């Protein structure tokens, strides 16, 4: 009977979370981010031609707009593209389903850790985890970072289980290894986490009975890492590692500050932020502080030690990666953070009468959903539309409707915009690969700097050359800053039309050159 209630409770949470992750998934985020477009385009390219956009056959890391990303998400997406089409929605759906799995995984981990006094607290914590802005936002992204987090979380569950049954270390290693093929963050995090874990719990693992398990885990790790090891000496493998610096350590305070977590998201990239909402709901700041206090009090218990290690190891490596705060890089931190918040919630719930507990809970859930709805589903699609490349689909349609005209699209402020046009114009991958400079294909893993001009069909995407371009019979499309009033006069440009964002600000203007002048 008890099991039925557990299943029922979890199903209710999954249904609510599923609704939040899938509701208007194709429309919110309002636009297509370049990372989403490049993944969708490359997955389709693999499906159609067996090569990526540069014409390289089945890469081990994908060169995406000058940077490199692990390949598994693209290969999985490539397979699904066959059935659901090469659209960003396909990839957003994969992520959303993955996050639903991570909610189950979170619940199982919390239950297995058995840190709370009340059964009620497991439900409440899982519920707030599943509807937290950090999770909802990342569940609706069509690129690899969230899926990497999902697989990593499954690995972390097995890692905790390994404290009881050390054999689980092998499964955990396998999941961490898989995660390293999905997201760059997990490629670093996995090995650091595993090594630190074995050292921390050496009394369990580095003993005669269990050393064999550690050895098998190492072998499993090495075998499954063979593809990565074959490119370990290339620049492509280490492309994002050059940003590492010890000087960034103090940004740790920013990551852990209640203000950052519960009030104001300081992420430098507007694309990662939700208006008027940080990564967690504001009222959870109090249980967070109570939870941190209780966590530090019981550190001799290995469950708490694991929780602290989980938190520290998921937040410290990203800290060294950049002087700026990135909530995406620290996404795995959400699991230990929420379990800690649960500790605080549990301590508070124990002290209040059940009836009050339920009333408070209903109020807090209602408040959370109202704030989430207002910030994410109403304000976010309008106020962050530009950060999400709103309007590029409209330009693509405009270009598509005029196949006999030549278009120059100025990409000064969005140097990776070309991929959006490849995606929206549905440019045939084979056709694009043929036109591309083969130097990128021939030196695929050498991290060559990105090209600054792109040409396909009737479109060129690059900066405007004010000496030559006005002499040609073309349409110039650029954002509000691309062409000044004096340039319009000097070159006799005629404005044809303009595009507006949801807040009715001009985002793009279309000009026709007066080449006969």
């Amino acid at each position, binding site marked *: 009977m008890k099991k039925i209630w557990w299943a029922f409770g979890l199903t209710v949470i999954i249904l609510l979370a599923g609704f939040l992750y899938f509701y208007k998934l194709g429309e919110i985020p309002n636009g297509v981010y370049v990372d989403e477009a490049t993944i969708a385009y490359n997955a389709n390219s693999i499906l159609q031609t067996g090569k990526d956009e540069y014409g390289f056959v089945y890469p081990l890391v994908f060169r995406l707009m000058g940077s490199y990303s692990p390949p598994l998400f693209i290969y999985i997406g490539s397979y699904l593209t066959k059935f659901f089409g090469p659209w960003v929605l396909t990839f957003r759906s994969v992520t959303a389903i993955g996050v639903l799995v991570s909610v189950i995984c979170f619940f199982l981990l919390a239950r297995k850790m058995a840190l709370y006094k009340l059964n009620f607290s497991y439900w409440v914590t899982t519920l707030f985890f599943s509807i937290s802005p950090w999770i909802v936002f990342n569940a609706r992204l069509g690129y690899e970072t969230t899926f990497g987090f999902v697989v990593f979380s499954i690995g972390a569950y097995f890692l905790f289980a390994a404290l009881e049954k050390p054999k689980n270390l092998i499964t955990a290693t396998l999941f961490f290894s898989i995660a390293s093929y999905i997201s760059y963050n997990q490629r670093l995090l996995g090995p650091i986490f595993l090594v630190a874990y074995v050292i921390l719990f050496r009394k369990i693992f580095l003993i005669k009975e269990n050393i064999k398990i550690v050895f098998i885990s190492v072998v499993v790790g090495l075998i499954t890492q063979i593809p990565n090891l074959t490119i370990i000496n290339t620049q492509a493998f280490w492309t994002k590692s050059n940003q590492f610096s010890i000087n960034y350590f*103090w940004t740790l*305070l*920013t990551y*852990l*500050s*209640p*203000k*950052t977590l*519960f*009030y*104001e998201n300081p992420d430098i990239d507007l694309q990662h932020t939700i208006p008027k909402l940080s990564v967690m709901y*504001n009222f959870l*700041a109090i249980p967070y*502080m109570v939870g941190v*206090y209780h966590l*530090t*009090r019981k550190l001799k218990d290995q469950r708490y030690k694991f929780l602290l290690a989980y938190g520290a190891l998921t937040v410290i490596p990203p800290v060294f990666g950049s002087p700026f705060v990135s909530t995406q890089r620290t996404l795995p931190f959400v699991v230990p953070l929420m379990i800690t918040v649960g500790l605080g919630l549990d301590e508070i719930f124990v002290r209040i009468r059940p009836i009050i507990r339920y009333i408070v809970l209903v109020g807090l859930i209602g408040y959370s959903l109202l704030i989430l709805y*207002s910030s994410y589903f*109403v*304000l976010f699609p*309008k*106020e962050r539309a530009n950060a999400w490349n709103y309007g590029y689909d409209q330009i693509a349609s405009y270009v598509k409707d005029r196949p006999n005209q030549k278009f120059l699209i100025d990409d000064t402020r969005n140097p990776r915009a070309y991929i959006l046009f490849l995606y929206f114009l549905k440019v045939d991958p084979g056709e694009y690969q043929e036109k591309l400079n083969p130097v990128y294909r021939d030196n695929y893993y050498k991290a060559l700097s990105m090209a600054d001009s792109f040409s396909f069909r009737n479109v060129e995407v690059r900066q405007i050359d004010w000496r030559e371009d006005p002499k040609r019979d073309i349409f110039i499309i650029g954002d509000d800053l691309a062409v000044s009033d004096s340039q319009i006069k000097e070159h006799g440009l005629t404005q044809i039309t303009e595009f507006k964002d949801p*807040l009715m600000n001009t985002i793009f203007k279309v000009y026709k050159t007066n080449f006969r002048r």
Partner: protein
Amino acid sequence: MNVYPPTLARLGYILEAKREVQLLRKLESNFFTVIDFKEYFPSRLPFISSPFLFIGLYFFVKEREKWKKYFYAFLVSIVILTVLGPHAKYGPILLYPFFGFFIFLGLKRIIKGVRK
């Protein structure tokens, strides 16, 4: 507020313009500024003092029965700063004596630990 669709105009008004909600937002902003570590490090306190402060704070909360009066005074100071705002000339000056005390407590604990 005009970002909200017409059917949600009332909700928009409540969340964005209602005076009581604005007041709560102000209090929320003050509260999170007061408890934000970055508010104090390194502009008001040197980074080097942070481990002592956190250790001291931990033992202060742990032994709150022993420091009952100070504990409540600390909480009241946070409430006062939340209401008044922490952006006066000297910032959250009410908390400085407590920080001094936490650093002292942290240092004392560390020295005690080393001696053991």
